[in-house]
């Protein structure tokens, strides 16, 4: 009985994913990027898995680029060393010791959502932890339960 109920509880903790709710609300402050990089824990931006840039100049607003947690991620499909493996709930996890930094994953993602750590020459992979959400003052980002 006890084992069964523990299993039930575990099943109810559904995986979450980071969602860009409305990029039109983004002011381009980059606080999310700095937050992501701070997890490692450094200043700067080397390990930011999320990227913000203007869509052709400040006057035209911003776009927010981050892993959308695909259920069948193309980046994992093209990884030649098996460093990227599909994650429960979508997206991928990176095993850095297997990664040779070939950059195939970056090419494969149609959103351009795989950022690159130029210092280590390896991809920066979003783990959908939602730390960045706490630093978005305008409600651009949210962490939600995976529904697919």
């Amino acid at each position: 009985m006890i084992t069964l109920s523990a299993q039930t509880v575990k099943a109810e903790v559904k995986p979450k994913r980071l969602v860009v709710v409305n990029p039109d609300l983004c002011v381009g402050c980059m606080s999310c990027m700095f937050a992501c990089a701070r997890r490692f824990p450094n200043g700067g931006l080397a390990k930011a898995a999320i990227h913000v840039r203007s869509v052709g100049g400040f006057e035209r607003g911003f776009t927010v680029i981050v892993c959308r947690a695909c259920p069948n991620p193309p980046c994992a499909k093209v990884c030649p060393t098996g460093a990227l493996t599909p994650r429960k709930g979508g997206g991928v996890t990176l095993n850095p010791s297997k990664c040779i930094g070939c950059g195939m994953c970056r090419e494969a993602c149609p959103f351009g959502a795989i950022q690159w750590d130029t210092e280590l020459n390896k991809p920066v992979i979003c783990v959908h932890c939602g730390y960045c959400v706490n630093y978005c003052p305008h409600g651009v980002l949210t962490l939600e339960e995976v529904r697919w």
Partner: protein
Amino acid sequence: MIMLADKACTRVLYVDLSRKTYWVKERPDLFERYLGGTGVAVKLLREEMNLSADPLGPGNVVVFAVGAFTAAYPTASKTVAMFKSPLTGNLGESHAGGRSAVAMKMAGFGAIVIKGESDIPVYLSIHDGKVFFRDASALWGVRSTYTVGRVLRERESWPGLRAIMRIGRAGERLIKYAGVVTETYRHFGRLGLGAVWGSKKLKALVVGGRRAIPVADPRKYRKVYDKIYDKVVKSDSMKKYHDLGTPVNIIPLNKIGALPTRNLTSARFEGAENISGEAIAETMLARRVACSHCPVACIHIAAIREEYPHEKYFYTTKYVSYDYEPLYSLGTMLGISDKEGVLRLIEEVEVEGLDAMSTGVALAWATEAFQRGIITEKETIVKPSWGDWRTYIQMVKYIVEQPNEFYRKLGEGTEEAAKTYGGVEFAMTFGKNEMPGYHAGPATHLGYVIGARHSHLDNAGYSYDQKLIGKEYPPPEKVIDDLMKEEAWRQILSSLVVCFFARKVYTPELVAEGLEALGIKIDAEGLKKLGWEIYAEKYKLKLDMGFDLEKDLKLPRRIFETPSPHGKISEEFMQKALDHFRKRIKELTGK
């Protein structure tokens, strides 16, 4: 024990435009002692420049510097530029935000020193530890700074993590108050950096990159970060910038009679409500934008709906960034009460790459001189009159195109023009720099004239005066002492480099905590002392570049004629104050 965990931030990039070469030196000696920004720039300028150099010759040197807090803490979003000003012939210092500061630090440099002059127009592309000299011949003479930005955006790397600084035609043509535009809406506006670039045939500078900033104490770093972040987004200290932005000042300043109007013939403007932050926000505010690493997003952008000239039902939208100072200089100072008119004038100034404040004050002087018959249509070509923004747009073009001797003089600054044609008593300049937008009382104007860069932001005399309304005014010596104390502390803020708008967040204690997490141990008292040291070094440099404490602390006649919120300003009070300042600055600098 001072030791920055991030070694790369002490790297100085030296670029020689004459020889099209560059080199990099690590300068922990400078960055660990002076934190960065202003403190480091003062030292680098002194090291690299012959102080008697022609500001528009190859001997002038441009220093850009960021600081210990850049890309480490929120609102550390500014870059300090230091150079010899062609407008004043003295020390030039101008700060800008946008993407510039974070981009420079992410490219792996704490400072960039630009020397010499190129034989052909060039732009610099700085990334991956290298400098690429690129031919800018085709960009030279392009009508709009917006276009130059668009072209470079397509051609260059690091989107989102770069700054695109460029000059307009005004800089190319050496207008002495031309600025450098960065990310379209932010500026190294003041004191003529654009003309210095123009003289060096430097059209643009693109810098970008991405790296980590190692910290000394990760746990402490994240704690201090959160403390600062919370203060920035949750406390009231930055509300003014968060909501209506700097234009929130227009109505209150008008109410107290501190809003310079029509060349300061008045300090109240009947049209203030029409061009207020509230009025523009209500119908035209279209977007909010932030500098890198600043959640406040104080950049306010208005949309102007514009019909095609010859086709019905075809429309386009223009986006114009507005702030208090341009609304003052190109609005109230010129008597413009049509908000769309003032925004269109601001846009023209942006297109040409001029400094909004100097341009507005120069046009205000020209209008009064025209009305008094000192100059005529022979000089001005068009007929300037208060409120007529269409004519002012034409005059802005003339300042850049220089169709006659009058506009050539006007392009040298308000004071130069007034010296030639007359009307010095209503040429609103301080140390040859056109005045900022406050007539709040004695401390305001003392602040402009004694400030090392003749900016209201040097020592905030304008704010000092506003706080004193309804209270007894202190004696002149105390006013000077207080302004100098403020200016000394602000050297720390501009060395870190944090935005002055966050000055209430960054108390000496919090700055000390923030520095400790990065590896610099210095307490609040030590910081204040360092502020005085940097202030002294800067003023020494200013004096060595020829600033004369006897002759150059001049106040324009007009400030004594138009009543301020503290009544008419007394000349005797101001002279006493300036005498005290001379004494204090001699003690401070030992000169």
